[in-house]
């Protein structure tokens, strides 16, 4: 395939390798946007990588009072896990410890069609110690649990569905500052899109990993081929001497279209300033096609 460049930024002829995951979507509300932020920051904390955290989670988008069931500010949060069984345990624990504890918060289902349903309030109701109240309005059942600031209202259950995790691209830049600026631009372009989240801090990963390690106890270790400080000693380095920093964006989404749209928007934003902004190349992480069935070829995505 012919060389591809966007504003002079080289788009490598490679692909991002993603894999099937299971996801759900919650709607979190609170009295003010600040308390929505507090609740969702807690809910999505320590949820960057399914390998180390058990799940991957982030705010999909903020919701206006007109969009939420209880007419208050809210946010849609997506949580990805490896199976519905994993999600069932993780979600109810996170909602119990991070949403129920947050002042004024409420938790509702944000996904109604899927492969099965997992408990929310249905698993937390016993915290009410016999004073919990079930209310069913239409097809939706809610639980009211008495808590110290009033009642915690929580939907009984939420659907889970098949999604995709591990969509990604890497930004290679001439300086750390320029790399970070390009990554921030990419995050800003992806965040408004529906059905896709960036689970890492600020939406960006700086410690990409490879499978395996020289230490037998570790299943993954730093991706030496993309470490600028190891160019001189890493025979398989994928960096040129002018690359000073690399940052990665990892995307989880509802389907291939959501991932593809996110990657396209993110790469376009990262390359918008061109080589003049210090962005030298865009590449992607894969494992030779052995890890996952979803392959997002950068040049096809950006065609």
């Amino acid at each position, binding site marked *: 395939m012919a060389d591809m460049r966007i504003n002079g930024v080289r788009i490598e002829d490679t692909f991002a390798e993603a894999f099937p995951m299971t996801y759900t979507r919650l709607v979190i509300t609170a009295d003010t946007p600040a308390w929505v932020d507090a609740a969702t920051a807690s809910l999505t904390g320590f949820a960057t990588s399914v390998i180390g955290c058990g799940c991957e989670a982030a705010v999909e988008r903020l919701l206006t009072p007109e969009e939420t*069931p*209880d*007419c*208050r500010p809210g946010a849609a949060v997506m949580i990805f896990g490896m199976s519905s069984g994993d999600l069932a345990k993780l979600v109810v624990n996170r909602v119990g410890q991070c949403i129920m504890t947050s002042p004024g918060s*409420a938790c509702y289902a944000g996904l109604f069609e899927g492969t099965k349903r997992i408990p929310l309030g249905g698993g937390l109701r016993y915290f009410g110690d*016999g*004073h919990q*109240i*079930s*209310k*069913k*309005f*239409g097809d*939706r059942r*809610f639980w*009211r649990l008495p808590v110290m600031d*009033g*009642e915690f*209202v929580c939907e009984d259950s939420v659907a889970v569905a098949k999604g995709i995790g591990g969509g990604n691209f890497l930004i290679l830049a001439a300086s750390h500052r320029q790399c970070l600026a390009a990554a921030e631009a990419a995050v800003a372009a992806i965040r408004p899109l529906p059905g896709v989240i960036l689970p890492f801090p600020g939406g960006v990963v700086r410690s990409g990993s490879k499978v395996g390690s020289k230490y037998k106890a570790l299943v993954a270790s730093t991706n030496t081929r993309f470490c600028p400080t190891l160019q001189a000693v890493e025979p398989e380095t994928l960096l040129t001497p002018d690359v000073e920093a690399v940052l990665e964006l990892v995307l989880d989404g509802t389907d291939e279209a959501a991932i593809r749209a996110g990657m396209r928007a993110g790469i376009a934003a990262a390359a918008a300033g061109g080589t003049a902004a210090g962005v030298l190349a865009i590449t992607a992480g894969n494992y030779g096609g052995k890890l996952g069935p979803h392959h997002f070829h950068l040049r096809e995505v950006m065609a």
Partner: protein
Amino acid sequence: MSGMTLTFCGGAGTIVDMSALLPERLAGLTTAEVAGLPLPCNGGVATVGGMFEISAGDAAEGLLIRPAGAVLHRVGAGMAAGRILVEGDVGSHAGAGMSGGLLRIAGNAGDALGGALPGLPLGMRGGLVSVGGRAGDRAAERMRRGIIVIDGPVGAYAAGFMIAGTLAAGGGCGPHPGFGMRRGTLLLGRPQDAMPIGFADGGTRDWLFLHLLRRGLEGTGSWFERAGSTRAHRFIGDLAEGGHGEILAMA
């Protein structure tokens, strides 16, 4: 409303048991087939065609009933799905034992609205009943699930022995509300003058779940859909029954 229309054409004051005329039972039947169905009436049995003028249409799309001067008991009793709209008043046991669907009564309802049919242990088990006027005694008696919303007042023993569900009466209620209540919600559109017998004072506050109820009532045009507040005084009981039910009186 598209669907089948039944307009009463008998004598004023005729008493009719309407429990056989449910959308799910009439769905797919022709006008002639519906006209031939037997209907308990004034202690005897008549036919639907002898009592009602029937318009062409499928009851699966909805059933519009015009009572004229008849006393129609058990309208929507046992209904599991579909819609019934009544342009006028209904008698007793409307929506009794109902498990789903929508029953909308533009006028007043008699006793035992959404309650239990004689000999049966449970009242309404699902669905939505909307009344534009007032309702009689024992509304929502032994109710298990669903919503009843009444724009006007309800009579005595509202939500008596209620097991769960929601009864919302915009015009308040008669004596002995929540008698024997186990769980569930009796929502009143006006403050209570006195503490209901058997209930403890649970304080006044804004109730978040009332927003959800309001969303559940969207499209009914009911008093609570129009109410701007979710602040209410809560009473918990019936403590004589060890109940965890609640009477919420809008503050």
